């Protein structure tokens, strides 16, 4: 199956998805005006991977600032992962943050509250 690569811009993160490894990687700020359009391909990749593969899925996230529409996109992805997790699928999130910026950890923490799958918030 296909891999995905979306180059980052000043207002959107670099996105790399590897089907073979079962990893979706995102790094950067996310405040595009058109979040749903921008992330449509990535959201579709996650849905397809969860539906068509049986291997684990890991999200490796180094996201800093997310505007509210990006937050909504991420919540939708986590909700979908949660559904699969409840059916026994292995899914996890590793969210990396700079220890100097506790606001990023707080944002990740609020997502984690609504997820039962392994969700690690890792200070660097």
């Amino acid at each position, binding site marked *: 199956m296909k891999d995905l690569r979306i180059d980052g811009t*000043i207002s959107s993160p670099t996105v790399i998805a590897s089907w073979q490894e079962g990893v979706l990687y995102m790094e950067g700020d996310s*405040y595009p005006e058109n979040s749903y359009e921008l992330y449509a391909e990535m959201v579709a990749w996650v849905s397809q991977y969860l539906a068509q593969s049986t291997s684990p899925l890991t999200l490796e996230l180094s996201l800093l*600032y997310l505007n509210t*529409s990006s937050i*909504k996109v991420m919540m939708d992805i986590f909700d979908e992962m949660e559904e699969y997790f409840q059916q026994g699928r292995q899914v996890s999130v590793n969210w990396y943050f*700079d220890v100097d910026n506790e606001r990023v950890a707080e944002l990740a923490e609020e997502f984690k509250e609504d997820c039962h799958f392994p969700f690690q918030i890792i200070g660097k």
Partner: protein
Amino acid sequence: MSAPNLYDLRERFEKDRILLCFNGPISRSLIEEIGNALKNYLKSEQMSPACALDVFAAYIELTQNIRHYAASSQLPGVEVATVIVSYDEGYYRVSAGNIVKAKDGEALVARIEALAKLDKTDLKALYKTQLRKPRDENAVTGAGLGLIDMARKSSKPMEASLQMIDGETAYFSLSIEI
């Protein structure tokens, strides 16, 4: 025609401790460019990264709100935004204003006043409820979360004002203190 009196303008900026001001049609790229300037300024001020992120977030949500409103309302002149970031007595203030339909402005002010009555716990609960609401299929963005998020970040209740221009339109402004 006389030349604009820049000295008076500068005096006003200094008196109000305005560190960034923009007035004009706002575009996606301008939001990014001004945002970058703001980020660099906040970094040079040795501000804590968390606080700098809050100021930046307030700036982005306010200006993007205006862009979304301009796109949906089709009102002439609505894309002209006034954006100010100022600093006073330990607080950063981010303010933004634009022209709105009077009835939209009234609804916004009512919503902001309702949010101002909620404490942090209530705001968080409301935020989570809104986050889970299915989004409008036609909406490209505008999760409806922006105002609640701003209310959560604001150290004092947000301040909104509405100044009537004529029977149909008004000037709406919103101010957030970080």
